[in-house]
């Protein structure tokens, strides 16, 4: 039970690293596509949304997607400006951000 709770709390970071793994190891496209979309449109926001103190499920859902897309966009822009933009690099940065957010939450709790 405690393991499951831990997995649930760390799910955003786990999903993001799973996406990094499937991209790095060139998994087949449908699997990669699903994980990449979830890792960039859900994971960073889900890792950060606990900071937002909203009990409303709809609010949390909207904020999760908006923060994720916002952060993913900014990461992609910064990497593009430095001419190092690849899917793997961007996902790795998102995974690090998600991990930091999740770890920060664990430390706070």
């Amino acid at each position, binding site marked *: 039970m405690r393991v499951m709770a831990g997995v649930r709390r760390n799910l955003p970071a786990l999903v993001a690293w799973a996406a990094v793994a499937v991209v790095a190891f060139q998994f087949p496209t449908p699997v990669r596509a699903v994980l*990449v979309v979830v890792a960039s449109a859900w994971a960073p926001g889900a890792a950060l949304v606990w900071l937002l103190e909203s009990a409303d499920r709809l609010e949390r859902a909207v904020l999760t997607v908006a*923060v994720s*897309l916002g952060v993913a966009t*900014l990461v992609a822009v910064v990497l593009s400006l430095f001419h190092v933009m690849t*899917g793997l690099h961007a*996902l790795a940065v998102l995974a690090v951000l998600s991990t930091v957010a999740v770890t920060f939450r664990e430390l706070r709790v």
Partner: protein
Amino acid sequence: MKAVVARLVGRDRALVTERSYLRGVIPRRVVQCLTPTRRAGGGLTTATATLAPRSRRATVRPGSWRGWLGLAVIAALWGSTFAWTVRLDRMTDFGLVSVMPVVYWVAVGLLTVSFWWWVRWRRAGPALLAGHVVTLIAIMHATPGILYGTTRYSWSYKHVGIVDYIVTHHGVDRAMPNLTAYQDWPGFFGLNALFASGSGTASALSYTVWAPFVNELLLLAPLVLILRTFTANRTVVWTAVWLFYLGNWIGQDYFSPQAFAYVLYITAVAVVLRWFLRLPPAARTRWAYGQFRLREPAVLVTSGGAIVEPTARPRTPAMYAVVVVVATAIAVSHQLTPFMLVAALGGLLVTRRLRSWSLFVVVTAISVGWVLIWGLPFLHQQLPAVLQTLGHPFDNTSASFINLSVASRDQVVVAYFDRALTAALCGLALIGAWYAWRSARWRRWQPAACLTVTPVLALFASSYGTEVVFRVFLFELPFVALFAASVLAPRPTGTRRRRIIRWVVGLGVVSALTVSFFFSYYGKERVNYMPAAEVSAMERLYSLAPPRSLMIEATDNTPWAFTHYADYQYLRYLSGTADVAKAVTTHPVSALVHLMEGYPHAYLIFSPTDAAQIEMTGALAPGQYQAIERDVRSSPQFETVLSQGGVFVVTLRFTP
């Protein structure tokens, strides 16, 4: 348990919700009950309902399974549309309206009636109403993609080309002569490069066919949040959502930075309205003591049933950061949307409804800062045109409309439909605003009125490539829909006869708006439809044409530039200078040879979609495009390179 909570979080923070409820909500409810406008029985019922413990049985939606069953039937009917043979090649200037089978229209009609039936019940479940809206979005925006099998609208292909560039070159190049603005505002393209490169697809074209459906779907949740900020009345909220989708005919939902930035804009506005909005304190005090005959409580109701005043909501630094992140993502993605957000925040600040002036300053600094730091070359390039249109709202507005005197007859009808749809929604919104202004609701709805007006400022700033009036309508649409819904939404009050009349009239108006939407949105599909054969012909052309070649066409309405766009140059002979257009129309062969002979390789393209664009907009006299094509085909100076899927490509026989 409560003692443990108090020990852990401190006495000040413990049980704050309960204390706020005891100190705030219950006294107000009692005051409401005691106001002379309410009958004693009603007051007692309200007080009892407020004070009684909440029961889970209250959330049961009796009969809603019938709604879901009906929805399943409608979805099945819509799905059966694709079993029919839809002759897209027989599309007239009415677009998809002219070729869709009867079963499709039956599904649309049934969905409208079903929604209007269920929305009148205040207790109809939000899931059922959301199901109706999602079905509507699918019917409206997924149908073209499923039928075509290709991405619609020629500009989507150019946007795919920018994504392809970032995937190939791992970055942007500001010195690029073609489509410079996209290199300066790369947010949307970078994000899609992440999707495309990460998922290992050959091109973003593999998923852009779904862009209109996904973009419209992404708007739904933040839109509901915005509307719920203004009213707890579920009927008004979902009627407004329905009207928003019926009114969103201008087609800015294709694969584009503006569609993405609009989703972020709506989200940012939702966050600002729910966390940074202020009600005037004096008015709240008056409200609390029942000095106004209020129709609705001036409170914000969350989906969990908790009732809080907007001013009681804490402005956490985290929410501030959310707005800043979203505003930055908008600023790096699109040119116009950041300034629409700045105008919205400025409007709320001026009307003293924004609780944080620093938020306005920070968002303005981000928006202006990106233009000054990264977009300056583009701004410098566009400055003369901007200065020319600055301060001319009427000229900017009139520049946006198509010239009905030269458009095809069907397109004139389509134009009347879209104008009527816009006018009807704005008219209903004006009536709604008038009623709101005369009622106590105005205090809460004034920010909505403010956000309806702020996009209009763009009319004074620029014609935005003759599109500004449509963009203004798009940005004010959520609030126009709210005011319109407050007039149109069925009400449970009054005699049975009045309720029925009101419901029937509402259904009639919504049906008329639905018809108008389909003519307005689908009416341009003849030019937006990019047949698979044409896309494949262009792919073939790119495999033949060496880098640095010139691609030349009449109007730009062809699926081109979606791959290796930086390696080629593009020329539109009807969209360029008037001299070139005149020369090509009077002496086609010599003028085209003159345009092409300066390049080592130049390809002149004739395509059915380009011909459709010319025919519908009246860019050339009827038959003139075909005459140019005939002259070129019969000229010995050109040789055929490609003839496939209706696309005909020639090059100069003797290149220098």
